[in-house]
């Protein structure tokens, strides 16, 4: 027989104990210096393709594999700019994708960083001067970090992203 009361009794966890004021204070003092470093060490990254050839994506994807295991550094890929701290852009920025990049940038909450990955995203790369492309990510949104290479190796990408993490923690 089911107890009918369970349908209208509200379930809630027991209230937690009030923290000891004295311990909190001493902890807070000790943590203060380290807190930024400890707690600031996580960044959500969203990839925005601005017309790449697919090479930079291959290397970014490699980062998420078991050998580089990006997540252990507190870096993770998310699938919407709304949840991102960092936009990673690839490709020379085709005219057709300009609006998409602008919208992704607008949708990313502040504070945000933009990392231009690959020679294309840095300044248009080999496609510089074509009628169909603008000169890289920087021609439309402010870029905080560039990682050059065609495509940059995963090791380089990782070094760049970790630098961002360190800077963020300071």
């Amino acid at each position, binding site marked *: 027989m089911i107890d009918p009361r369970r349908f209208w009794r509200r379930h809630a966890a027991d209230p937690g104990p009030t923290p000891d004021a004295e311990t909190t204070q001493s902890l807070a003092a000790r943590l203060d210096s380290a807190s930024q470093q400890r707690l600031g060490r996580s960044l959500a990254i*969203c*990839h*925005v*393709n*601005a*017309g*790449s*050839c*697919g*090479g*930079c*994506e*291959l*290397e*970014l*994807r*490699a980062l*998420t*594999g*078991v*050998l*580089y295991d990006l997540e252990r550094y507190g870096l993770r*890929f*998310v*699938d*919407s*700019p709304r949840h991102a701290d960092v936009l990673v852009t690839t*490709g*020379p920025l*085709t*005219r*057709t*994708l*300009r*609006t*998409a990049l602008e*919208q*992704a940038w607008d949708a990313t909450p502040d504070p945000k960083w933009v990392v231009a990955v690959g020679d294309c995203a840095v300044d248009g790369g*080999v*496609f510089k*001067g*074509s*009628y*169909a*492309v603008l000169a890289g990510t920087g021609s439309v949104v402010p870029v905080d970090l560039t990682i050059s290479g*065609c*495509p940059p*190796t*995963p090791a380089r990408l990782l070094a760049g992203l970790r630098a961002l993490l360190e800077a963020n923690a300071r």
Partner: protein
Amino acid sequence: MTAAAIIASAGAESCHPWPRHILTPTDWAAMAAFLVADPSLALVGLWADTTHVHALFLTEAEDLPLLASVPVEAGAYTALSPARPGAAWFERLIHDLWGHAATGGMDARPWLDHGLWPHSAPLSPRPVPPPAMAEPPDFLPPTEDGLFQLPIGPIIGCIDDAWHLRLTLRGETVERAEARLGYTHKGTLALMRGKPPRTAARFVARLGAEATVAHSLAFALATEAALAVAAPPRAATLRRMMGELERITVHLGDLALLGDAAGAPGVAATCGEQRELLARELEIAFGHRLMMDCVVPGGVAADVGPEGMRAVRRGVGRVVTALPGLRRLLESSACLTRLVGLGRVDRQMVHAFAAGGVAGRASGRRFDARQLRDERSVTAPIDTTGDAAARCRLQLVEIESSLRLLGRLLDTLPDGGTSVALPMLSGEGIGCAESARGDVWHWLRLDHGQIAAAFPRDPGWALWPLAEWAMQGAALEDVPAIQRSFGLTASGADL
């Protein structure tokens, strides 16, 4: 009379190694009419230059390429899309880049041009200011009221190409899938024009990263055919090795993504790891993890020393060792079972779009561009089931056969030079190579050593329409797995 006979009876231009027949507009129209009831010719590609429209066919019986051209009169030519559905996207491309209109075409909507370039018809002698165009671009009208439209892209979110897929949903079932590409159009053809082949090869290598070796090779072969030179034997063998290595890495990468999409993280992790380990050896051997810019017209960019050869052997050996485990993993995980019956395409469809590679062979179309050239010994396995599971199994089988071929090539690598100089001559050539996703074709015309006109045909031209078709009737949750099973990329077809 057949379409092939009409083409063969027309006068030919000297294009190497296969002649290009110039048809009169009347003959071309007759050929188009015959094509409707004649399935023996597959349309591989359709493109243009400032004065002519060119079609590349393949005779399905003996896999012989057949090139036909027609002069454009009053800015128009007779469309092939009523006879070959795959022609529709090409006709839209020709209109967007060169401004020639397809009379009687099935679809006159723009394709690459989203109305945001400084001029429309950028490759025509007289580009005009752009027309006002709808952004987001116009899609087919809904078939009936009350169906839900789900737009995906062009920013996909997961690390992927930029494309747009519009799904029309009835409940959870896909009623129609319509792809719109052109987002990654970088104006490659305009950049190649007027440059010597060695310089233009840099753009060719960046048409699509997962077929960079195949594109570079097809382009190099076309250039060499046009100039009547041949790469030295050592370079030829090194190129074949790179082609097979690329096939293995791309298949491993595809299997990793497919494993992810099909809920088999173990498969994804193993394949991803193997791919990465092989890429590291490739960097030691060829100086680039993807072997970009390593195949150049006239040969290869750099010789591979003993240290490099050891790296290749190490890489190949590691995949050989890992393969039985991978096969077991694939068969024991839910991955293959999950893929059975998904995204099925029948033989007729792959013929209609001239789809090659794993997608074509999984549905019974046996064409393999390697057999057109020196590699008669390559016997590509075929399947007739045509679903995602069949494509997945074939990928694994192809990795095995590539490994065997590599073993042979490593043992028989000849000594000698690795490139020849290219004469500054005029000529026309066509070349093809088998990428992991299917056959890549490059056509070009040289004018005193500089590119006057060129066109690359990426396998994406066949795979996208096929995938659109295969998604019809699928459950929404299966769409990612179907998409992955075709290995869809946009950049190569976006030019």
